């Protein structure tokens, strides 16, 4: 029996050993929120500021991963804007964050946090400026408003959208997780505990 089963088992094991190679993301846009590009795990997050699952994912998972893993260069988180067309103010939010990013990641993170925290409010009336102002000093806020006038801000968002389309992103949040020799794509909300168990299973 085992003699006959050997070729079948070999074929199955060979098929199982085949995995997707880690995709090249060198020419990709995106903002590094934390961790070095040489971290063993890279998480590309495609997100929309007006999506409730993205809000939950950023506030409950991303923030903790940045604190627990990215600060130790174990996980690199790269954030990609993917404002969905039917979310009226998502692109405006993305533009504010692009401007904040141009002032540095330390400016970007509190702005992102404030925008996500206040999502329910600005998603109704579009008053994003209040959320952004709350996260910055008056001087930084004025500087950010000045940067917002730059037409390349919108071009950067367009580039992000084109990149997401190229990657066949259809839902938010979508994660593309790259780690030695492998890459996997995840759609939907990943809680911090599940993400932590996954990360720990890779970096031991």
């Amino acid at each position, binding site marked *: *029996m085992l003699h*006959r*089963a050997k070729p*079948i*088992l070999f074929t*199955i094991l060979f*098929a*199982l050993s085949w*995995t*997707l190679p880690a995709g090249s993301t060198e020419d990709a846009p995106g903002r590094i929120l934390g961790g070095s590009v040489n971290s063993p795990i890279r998480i590309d997050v495609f997100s929309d500021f007006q999506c409730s699952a993205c809000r939950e994912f950023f506030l409950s998972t991303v923030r903790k991963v940045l604190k627990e893993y990215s600060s130790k260069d174990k996980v690199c988180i790269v954030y990609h804007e993917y404002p969905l067309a039917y979310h009226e103010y998502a692109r405006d939010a993305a533009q504010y964050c692009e401007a904040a990013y141009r002032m540095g990641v330390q400016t970007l993170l509190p702005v992102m946090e404030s925008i996500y925290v206040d999502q329910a409010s600005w998603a109704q009336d579009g008053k994003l400026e209040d959320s952004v102002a709350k996260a910055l000093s008056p001087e930084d806020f004025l500087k950010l408003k000045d940067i917002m006038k730059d037409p390349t801000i919108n071009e950067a968002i367009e580039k992000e959208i084109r990149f997401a389309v190229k990657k066949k992103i259809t839902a938010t949040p979508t*994660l593309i*997780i790259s780690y030695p020799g492998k890459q*996997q*794509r*995840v*759609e*939907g*909300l*990943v*809680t911090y*505990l*599940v*993400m932590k*168990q*996954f990360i720990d*299973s890779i970096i031991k």
Partner: protein
Amino acid sequence: MIFKLLHWLCRLTLAGVFIYSGYIKVKAPLQFAVAISGYQLVPENLVFPLAQYLPWIEIALGVAILIGWKIRHFSAATAALLLFFIVILTITYMRGIEANCGCFGMDDPISPLTILRDGIFLVPALYLAFEDKIRRKFSGEIPIP
């Protein structure tokens, strides 16, 4: 002849389904973990371990059925696992939770069709588990005491 044909049809279908389904999940355990979370039935700390190990059980069952090792026992185990999936899918659907089945990738929301699909897979599993009895019944053989 017809029984032999039926036997191989059931065996290859079931083995193919289980190996393929397990393989997809082994390749993307985190995606499967998201699907399991969606059912809102498993404690959060067990979600990822389940997503890691359940696919290997599926593959092991598929391989055992394919190579024909203790086929009656493994088919019965496969039928039990399918019944378990059907119950879980039905409970989740009845609770009105919009979750993904996670059975063959992510783009597969739970619906009566996904439940029916698992029900159809149950047929070959039950046939292989009770094949001796079915053959005796239809060919008029006298059971060996």
